[in-house]
């Protein structure tokens, strides 16, 4: 029941779609039992495509292919989803050419697209061109009784943003290096937290809330900005709600966690996977103990450990179906008995694979 979409079924769906027999698609979106009158909300989630210009009209093929593939597969989902999320870092260096090239690919998606700002989209022109394409950087919307919030979590201090670097290009380069000590910790910032407090004021505490951010709204490893500096303050605003879910990109890997009422799920990248911070021998990280790591990526398969997600919000809680291209998919969903997200196959240490033992 958890294997809703396998690589094979998506491929088959592609073939069937080409033949024009959409009604015979082997994909069946299983509607999990829903107590009450609300229908569940489903959306596809694509993130971290890092479209990178080489020069002129040439772009890094590898990253292009990841995004194209995700868009093509997401369009095969039947029945159609309520909306599509893009989780940030559409571009590598925030260039207009990169954002345009990525936006062109995303424009092929069926359905309403919502986008989250990533640091790679932002630090060249401070989000100006991105905002022309995708609108406000923080806002909320409601679908079928679920309150969705989009935040720009990759802001940082005014000093770093406005006064430290001689050029916008250098500022972008400094923030683009994940492990660059000249970078700066991400934050939501006071202005946006005030907006969030006002926005949530109007929402009943029983309403399920889903927050989309680019960086984790929790602190995992500061050295790679798997981190939001004012995470605790944002969590405090979310704490009064009965069921809160945070979905974030940036980390290019599967992570999940539970802090109080807040369940956290990360999403994968379409571009490339990142090592878990625990594999860096010179620093401590705080990978949530709940998280069962992904299989170690095999570099010989270009798309290994990348992919996209199908997410449903059922009874106010998130189930993320990770569509891994060269491995079995992973399903991480909220376990009401345990009170936190679990991996539906691998949570039990006895059932893990050798390739999940990173070092």
């Amino acid at each position, binding site marked *: 029941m958890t294997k809703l979409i396998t690589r094979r079924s998506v491929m088959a769906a592609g073939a069937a779609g080409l033949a024009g027999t959409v009604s015979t698609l082997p994909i069946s979106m299983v509607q999990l039992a829903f107590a009450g009158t609300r229908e569940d909300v489903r959306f596809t989630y694509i993130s971290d495509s890092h479209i990178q*210009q080489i020069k002129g009209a040439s772009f890094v093929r590898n990253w292009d292919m990841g995004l194209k593939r995700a868009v093509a597969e997401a369009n095969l989902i039947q029945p159609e989803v309520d909306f599509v999320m893009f989780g940030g870092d559409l571009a590598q260096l925030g260039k207009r050419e990169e954002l345009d090239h990525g936006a062109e690919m995303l424009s092929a998606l069926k359905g309403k697209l919502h986008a989250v700002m990533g640091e790679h989209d932002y630090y060249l022109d401070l989000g100006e061109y991105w905002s022309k394409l995708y609108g406000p950087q923080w806002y909320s919307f409601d679908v079928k009784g679920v309150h969705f919030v989009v935040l720009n979590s990759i802001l940082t201090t005014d000093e770093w943003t406005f006064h430290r670097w001689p050029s916008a290009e250098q500022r972008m380069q400094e923030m683009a290096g994940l492990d660059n000590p000249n970078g700066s910790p991400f934050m939501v910032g006071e202005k946006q937290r005030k907006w969030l407090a006002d926005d949530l004021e109007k929402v009943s505490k029983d309403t399920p809330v889903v927050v989309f951010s680019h960086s984790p709204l929790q602190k995992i490893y500061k050295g*790679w900005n798997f981190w939001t500096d004012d995470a605790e303050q944002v969590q405090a605003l979310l704490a009064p709600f009965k069921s809160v879910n945070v979905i974030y990109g940036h980390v290019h890997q599967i992570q999940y966690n539970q802090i109080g009422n807040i369940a956290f799920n990360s999403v994968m990248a379409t571009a*490339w996977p990142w*090592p878990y911070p625990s594999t*860096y*021998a010179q620093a401590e990280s705080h990978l949530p103990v709940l998280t069962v790591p992904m299989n170690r990526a095999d570099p*010989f398969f270009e798309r290994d450990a990348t992919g996209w997600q199908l997410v449903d919000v059922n009874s106010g809680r998130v189930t993320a179906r990770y569509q891994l291209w060269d491995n079995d998919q992973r399903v991480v969903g909220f376990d009401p008995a345990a009170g936190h997200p679990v991996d539906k196959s691998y949570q039990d240490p006895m059932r893990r694979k050798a390739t999940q033992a*990173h070092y």
Partner: protein
Amino acid sequence: MRISMTALALGLGLVAAPALADEFKGTDVQRWQAEYESVAKKGRELWTSGALGTNGVACAQCHPNAANTHPETYPKFQKQFGKVTQLWEMVNWCIKNPLQGQALAADDPKMTAILSYVAYERRGVKLEPGKH
């Protein structure tokens, strides 16, 4: 280097006790360490620069702090190469494929710099040759 050490030993031999086989001082050790660190630093620059290949992609994009390169496990069997390989062969695989560049010679100073940096980021981890 060898010539100057020999000259030093000869010099000592003329005035004092018989020459010792491998005599060096704290300042020598510091200099040698500094030499290594400057090469590892060059490696870090190459790792993050995007100049090794042709498409601007940098090693650090996938391997921040050279993580998941596990130099302590080489030489090891790489199933995709079908043989036991050394780390420089894997570095060249990455230069040729994700970076769309030209392979470096095993003793190219750039390769030495890259290997120096990768090992530096993994310092303190025990050797486990062959491990997967």
